[in-house]
């Protein structure tokens, strides 16, 4: 679990993620078998590849949730071997689950996650407003929302948490066309505000126009990047 995050000024250059021969083992299985990767600030990186290729593990490694077994890696200036606690508060992970408390309302969820980083009431209200959650949806329990509305609430929590690196696993899954458009628009806004995004997605039509860089993850390694 996290401790204090270091000041952003301490972090050098525009490189947000730098992995060299990174190996991550889940149980006894090497889910990542030597990944070399560089992501710069403001990038939207699309991770593509078949199921079980290691995309989710790569995102979790970058979030400091999975230990680096071999190789070297830094994310937002934090060493993945020794500074995972310092890294975690700076990243936001949105996996297959949304990370919400289903019995709490939208406003309470965003308020809670914002409060973990000391966000003010005004900041929380601004995030809710920005994502169209301020009026009708704010007092509703998350359990009663549609999949798209829950996803939007989860992204509001990431914004409220002031995450610098967004790690998203299939963010469009289960959403209708309008919900998908919303996600794309939010991601572009996040990048415009200085965040960096890594997205694992099977959805070519959605991810390709969004991404500034596409990476093929196959068998736990990354093939050379293709600039879109």
């Amino acid at each position, binding site marked *: 679990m996290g401790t204090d995050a270091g000041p952003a000024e301490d972090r050098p250059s525009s490189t947000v993620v730098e992995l060299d021969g990174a190996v991550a083992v889940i149980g006894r299985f090497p889910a990542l078998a030597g990944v070399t990767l560089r992501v710069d600030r403001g990038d939207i990186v699309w991770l593509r590849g078949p199921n079980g290729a290691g995309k989710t593990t790569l995102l979790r490694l970058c979030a400091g949730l999975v230990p680096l077994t071999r190789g070297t890696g830094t994310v937002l200036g934090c060493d993945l071997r020794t500074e995972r606690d310092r890294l975690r*508060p700076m990243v936001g992970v949105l996996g297959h689950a949304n990370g919400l408390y289903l019995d709490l309302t939208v406003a309470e969820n965003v308020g809670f996650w914002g409060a973990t980083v*000391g966000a003010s009431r005004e900041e929380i209200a601004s995030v809710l407003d920005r994502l169209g959650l301020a009026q009708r949806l704010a007092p509703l329990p998350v359990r009663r929302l549609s999949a798209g509305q829950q996803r939007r609430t989860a992204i509001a929590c990431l914004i409220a948490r002031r995450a610098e690196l967004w790690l998203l696993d299939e963010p469009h899954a289960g959403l209708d066309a309008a919900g998908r458009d919303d996600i794309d628009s939010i991601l572009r806004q996040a990048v415009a505000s200085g965040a960096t995004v890594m997205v694992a997605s099977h959805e070519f039509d959605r991810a390709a126009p969004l991404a500034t860089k596409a990476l093929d993850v196959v068998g736990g390694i990354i093939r050379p990047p293709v600039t879109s």
Partner: protein
Amino acid sequence: MTGWWDTTWLIAKRDLLVEWRSRIALNQVFPFAGIVMVMFGFAIDDTRLMKQIAPGLIVLATMFSLLILVQRSFAVESEDGALDALRTAGVSSSALFWGKSIAMAIQLAALEALLILLAILLYGSTIRPSGVLLLIATWLVASWGLATVGTLYGGLAAGARGRETLLPLLLLPVVAPVLIGATRAVEAALGARGSVADGWPWMGLVAVFAAVFCAGGTLAVGTLIDE
């Protein structure tokens, strides 16, 4: 980042709010504990004996209810992947442990108060005037001790397969000192056995247990959740 105490209180408030909204404790756990007391009453069906064993039944019913509360406390975190979000939110593991323990202790304290009331109503138990302080001290210390050990073992079992069955197997043997100590202390406070003075050392045993698991949980829960 917010301060340690702010984060701890934030977690505790959040857990209590989730319980308040879902009403699981109020509508399911509390009635369950009450039913345990009533069923024991049916099974024993001896007023004198019931009065004598009421303290043990109070503690036992609390422990059974603890299992449900612990499962619930961590189910809330895993239901929609919130535990991973907490890990990446920079919430310190000790604040998470204390926050969840405080919320659980408050629920347990309310539950025990209800069970003591039920023992008075159903079993005809009485509180010695000189035992009121001992009863309150045992009530608070046992609530905290059970909450800390419950949170620690809840964290340990949270990621395990078959955690629903694993948790009672892990937790019940460990809380045996609380069962013994709190029962003896409550017996003394209610006048079921010995004098009030005999109860204080047992309350001390429960306090030592609470302190050990509080310290152990503060140090270990981060590693347990990470693994």
